[in-house]
């Protein structure tokens, strides 16, 4: 196996610009990245720093304006060119979107979550679908009574967990989560983080976890990447970055967290 092939995702000089002329915005400056299975990568940065754009490029929802993305050594463009390989790519890499409007308002959650099972995993029998769904729902502490609901009939947190369920049933090799806990109550956040962490560990999945805050990322991932205005300003293991931040922005960020946690400690 060659070097490139062992990585699930390989990004070479991948960057993205929106608009042209005066309206040109550089969302992501060209960057290199290797993502291996079994590796958890946290990506943080303030909003507008290009995290979502980066994540969306990895699943083909945006086309990079420069550089190439490859999956197991094969360019993403090729993966997405034919129906069969496109499905195979979807089996390997799944993405949970940032916003919670990612469900068809007319579909029940049951129908929505069973789609990837049918189309990507080829599960035909209703009973099998039901049992796989139950297993995931149990992990996510989702009540089966919610299956027959439509998106507008549940809370944002429940919708977000169904979105996770829709990706997790596929059992991908790499899961990309875009701010999946930002919309949740603090009380639910912990539970969902725990769940993602456990699930990823049990199934030996790779994980790219995008968040705008530090705590969730340090809890869930071992590696950290800090983005600012489309640029990667810092990367390394969580321990390294937290103890020895090199970029002033990261230092600032850490200082802010330190002071806020002190305040909280003081209050308790």
């Amino acid at each position, binding site marked *: 196996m060659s070097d490139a092939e062992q990585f699930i995702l390989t990004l070479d000089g991948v960057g993205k610009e929106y608009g042209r002329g005066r309206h040109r915005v550089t969302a992501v400056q060209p960057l290199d990245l290797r993502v291996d299975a079994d590796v958890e990568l946290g990506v943080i940065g303030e909003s507008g720093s290009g995290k979502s754009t980066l994540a969306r490029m990895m*699943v083909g929802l945006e086309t990079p304006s420069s550089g190439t993305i490859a999956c197991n050594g094969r360019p993403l463009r090729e993966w997405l060119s034919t129906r069969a390989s496109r499905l195979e790519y979807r089996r390997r890499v799944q993405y949970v979107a940032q916003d919670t409007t990612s469900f*068809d*308002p007319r579909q*029940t959650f049951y129908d929505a979550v069973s789609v*990837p099972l049918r189309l990507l995993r080829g599960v035909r029998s209703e009973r099998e679908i039901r049992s796989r769904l139950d297993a995931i729902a149990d992990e996510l502490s989702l009540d089966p009574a919610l*299956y027959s609901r439509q998106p507008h009939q549940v809370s944002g947190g429940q919708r977000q967990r169904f979105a996770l369920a829709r990706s997790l049933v596929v059992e991908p090799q790499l899961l990309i989560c875009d701010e999946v806990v930002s919309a949740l109550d603090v009380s639910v956040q912990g539970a969902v983080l725990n769940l993602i962490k456990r699930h990823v560990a049990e199934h030996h999945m790779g994980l790219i976890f995008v968040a705008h805050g530090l705590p969730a990322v340090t809890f869930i991932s071992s590696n950290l990447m800090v983005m600012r205005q489309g640029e990667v300003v810092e990367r390394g293991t969580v321990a390294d970055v937290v103890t020895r931040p090199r970029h002033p922005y990261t230092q600032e960020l850490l200082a802010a967290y330190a002071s806020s946690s002190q305040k909280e400690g003081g209050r308790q």
Partner: protein
Amino acid sequence: MSAQFPDQTAALAVAPRRTGGTIRAVFAFVPLALVVAIAVLAPVIAPYDPVTSVAASRLPPSPEHWFGTDAVGMDILSRTIYGARIAVQFGVIVAVLSTIGGVLIGTFIGLSESSSGVLGLLGRGLNQISSYLLAIPDVILGIVVVGIMGSSDFALTVAITLCLVQAPVKLTRVEVLRVRRESYLESAKLAGESSFRAALVHVMPNSIGPAMRNMPLIFGNCVIILASLGFIGIGVKAPTPEWGYMISSGLSSLVLGRWWPAVFPAAAVLLSVLAIAYSSRAIPRMWPLLAVRVKRWNPIGRKARA
């Protein structure tokens, strides 16, 4: 038109006002239903055959002939009742045809117009053509189409459908443009759905609302155009009891002071278009309410599967 999704939340807000709501919802349908009922029951209600002379000509209204008789002795009441049948026949066919056609064309335009290549070109072209056709006055288009195809029911249907299909095309296109930006389409893509499947399963069902609610309006407009074409003398063939044609053939009597051959069909047109207009405004308002009701009737179906 942009407030599609909130419909459902509105439905939840209306739901508690149960009985009053149901009665109002039913009343929204009554005028339209009445027109349709007269059309369907015409053979039962009408006292005489509508296309044979049954009495002396030009009799004024009397107990035997409530609406009098026309220039060839046909019973105007029977003809007016059968007129509803003609109007409803055309109305239903045209409404269904143009809604189905409009939704299909509108969806195609909405999905293809921003893509590059032949499909995008075709989509943009169709959209332009639709805009230009929208600029043709209904009656004028009717005259030209009937003139070229020769006068027949088929030609009339084509003519009126061509006039009225543009509204559902535009309504659906705007909806599709909105729906395409929805992130659930991206999720569907990631779940392995092809764009064709997504168009059928997600885009169309979420975009047909305005076109469906526009259907009664098409129905009403069809009645108006049909009567107008009949009135200027290029509608359905001669003895057929069509209101517009009846009015125009009653004109010569009207000038001589015999008002009944023209006035009764005119009143029928007036009442029916008002009834249809009332329903076509009230039904969309009742739509969310009805949607909730239907859901309540059939809540188990889905659960059983889940």
